[in-house]
């Protein structure tokens, strides 16, 4: 069966060459490769293919299309297809579908690769493809965002390469199973690179600005697929190196807590979603066994939210509740955000439930508290009323908004609808069915009760926060220039000054170096 796997890995890249010659074929080629990847994901989940294959001898390339890779492959296929479908009618640069193909192929390789050098090469190609997708618009801001991302990611990949070299010096092999006996220095270097790629904690601080100011379909790709290219190698390494597990667990919890806290204070919808990505990726790395399911649920929902956001003209959360949304936007928005918050029977509920039931002791309680925080974060975007079909707009302001959205997003949001449909349907797929079957009646009731209390706590937190924001808005002058008279009703708008400015390029690089030093201290002490 090896030829099938190799052909599937090569298909997107060959299709990209073909698309460069025959641009007409580019979009069908993307759909075809996504279909192939989805089939491959199913095959990997059901172990129809050999779990591991080696090319070019024992020092060569190792590929592992196993059950760990399966949910990430499915996520990659669905998100790429949805992003393509969403932009189907719009005129695009010829290079766009081509770059999408390269990105898709390289993420696939990063997911199944199981030796460090293949991982390095795949991650570099992912970085270059992401950079080019970001820069493609050619505007100055996008060029700067892309450059920033590339500089950071190339710096961490150099650290990764040093880790590879030192590992070879110790083990005489680049194979992943050698990482288990590696020294703390090697582990720290590899982990800091992959954490940056996976957008966890301080290493992921490049994300919010990139998401808020870059094109939204690239944001969907970033939050949906590009992160999985960093997460899967990280999960593979943590499965080998036991000393990394506790460090990753607490780092993940810290990342989740920080992400939720910053999202609660964020006045901009796009940045709120980005902070929430930081939080959710933290949850993914906490427990490698559940990581695939959480990443699948989160990636589908977050990509859908970013694609929907493109049809919503104003990303400010102030006055969000006064702007009605059309049903074709309202339903996917609600379903996707409810899934991340963990409402049964959506995919997010299963992931959250598995996570909190399998974690021992204090970590489990912390994760439950973070889930309540997540509910409070998403309660901020559940506000807007469902506008009736073709209802006359209430005020001139909303008329302008409705007009803008009508011209902006003519037609149904195909991509987001696909993702949300997948989110609902996948609860009855081979990924989720064994988990449902494993839960007896009592466990199911317990999980439901827990979810209900988490939702109640989250909503209460949301009301407390919005009430205090209202009080602040009524008492003093609203911080920040807002022309909207309804400012402060739905959003706590903190002054820009007191929040630490952590997102400049220098701060990003400094944070990564500090994280590397901290990891080195933590891992070096352990025997």
């Amino acid at each position: 069966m090896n030829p099938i796997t190799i052909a599937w890995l090569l298909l997107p890249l060959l299709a990209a060459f073909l698309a460069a010659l025959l641009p007409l074929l580019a979009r069908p080629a993307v759909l075809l490769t996504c279909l192939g990847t989805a089939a491959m994901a199913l095959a990997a989940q059901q172990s129809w293919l050999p779990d591991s294959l080696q090319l070019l001898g024992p020092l060569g390339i190792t590929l592992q299309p196993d059950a760990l890779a399966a949910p990430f492959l499915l996520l990659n296929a669905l998100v790429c297809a949805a992003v393509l479908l969403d932009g189907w009618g719009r005129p695009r640069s010829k290079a766009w579908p081509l770059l999408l193909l390269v990105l898709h192929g390289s993420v696939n390789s990063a997911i199944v690769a199981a030796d460090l050098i293949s991982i390095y090469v795949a991650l570099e190609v992912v970085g270059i493809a992401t950079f080019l997708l970001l820069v493609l618009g050619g505007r100055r801001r996008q060029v700067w965002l892309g450059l920033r991302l590339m500089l950071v990611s190339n710096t961490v990949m150099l650290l990764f390469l040093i880790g590879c070299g030192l590992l070879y010096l110790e083990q005489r092999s680049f194979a992943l199973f050698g990482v288990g006996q590696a020294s703390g220095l090697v582990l720290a270097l590899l982990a800091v690179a992959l954490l940056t790629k996976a957008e966890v904690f301080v290493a992921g601080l490049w994300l919010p600005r990139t998401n808020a100011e870059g094109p939204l379909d690239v944001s969907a790709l970033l939050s949906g697929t590009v992160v999985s290219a960093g997460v899967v190698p990280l999960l593979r390494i943590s499965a080998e190196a036991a000393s990394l597990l506790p460090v990753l667990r607490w780092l993940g919890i810290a990342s989740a807590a920080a992400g939720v806290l910053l999202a609660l204070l964020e006045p901009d919808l796009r940045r709120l979603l980005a902070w929430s990505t930081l939080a959710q990726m933290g949850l993914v790395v906490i427990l490698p066994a559940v990581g695939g399911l959480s990443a699948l649920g989160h990636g589908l929902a977050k990509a859908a939210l970013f694609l929907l956001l493109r049809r919503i003209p104003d990303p400010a959360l102030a006055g969000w509740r006064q702007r009605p949304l059309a049903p074709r936007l309202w339903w996917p928005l609600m379903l996707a955000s409810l899934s991340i918050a963990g409402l049964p029977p959506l995919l997010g509920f299963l992931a959250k439930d598995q996570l909190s039931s399998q974690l021992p002791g204090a970590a489990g309680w912390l994760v439950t508290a973070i889930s309540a925080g997540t509910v409070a974060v998403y309660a901020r975007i559940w506000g807007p009323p469902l506008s009736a079909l073709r209802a006359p707009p209430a005020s001139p302001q909303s008329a302008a908004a409705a007009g803008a959205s009508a011209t902006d997003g003519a037609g149904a949001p195909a991509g987001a609808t696909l993702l949300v449909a997948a989110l609902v349907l996948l609860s009855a797929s081979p990924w989720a069915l064994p988990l449902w079957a494993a839960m007896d009646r009592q466990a199911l009731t317990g999980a439901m009760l827990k979810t209900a209390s988490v939702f109640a706590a989250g909503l209460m937190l949301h009301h407390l926060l919005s009430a205090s924001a209202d009080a602040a808005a009524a008492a003093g002058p609203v911080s920040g220039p807002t022309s909207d008279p309804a400012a402060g009703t739905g959003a706590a708008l903190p002054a820009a000054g007191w929040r630490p400015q952590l997102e400049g390029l220098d701060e990003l690089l400094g944070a990564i170096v500090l994280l590397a030093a901290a990891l080195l201290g933590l891992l070096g002490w352990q025997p």
Partner: protein
Amino acid sequence: MTAFRALELLVLLAVLAGLVALLRHRNLFLKVLAMDVTSTAVISLFVLIAARDGLITPILQGHSPVVDPGVAAAYADPIPQAVILTAIVIGFSVQALLLLATTLLAHRDPTLDVAELDLPEPSGPGAGP
């Protein structure tokens, strides 16, 4: 201290010098150059690892080695060299892309000050695609 250790230390010093320069310089062009210094240091680390046991290139002619193993048993390790060749190509292309993007930015703002580039653009609520 063996020669290998001393050279390894020098290489790690070069890596650190590159990282410090990357953090310290405010000019984007100098930052890109500093990254190149780090990248060169990483390449020399791999070359050093390849040469830790010997310097003679292992080449086969037909089925017999060009250099008689009886004469010189200490061959260089070909694996790290093969690996770093890939990394050199990737590093080169990344460097080219970064410099291209820097050139694009320099058309507007020749100072290339990172702190200035990082300032958010003044934009209305509906800005962005």
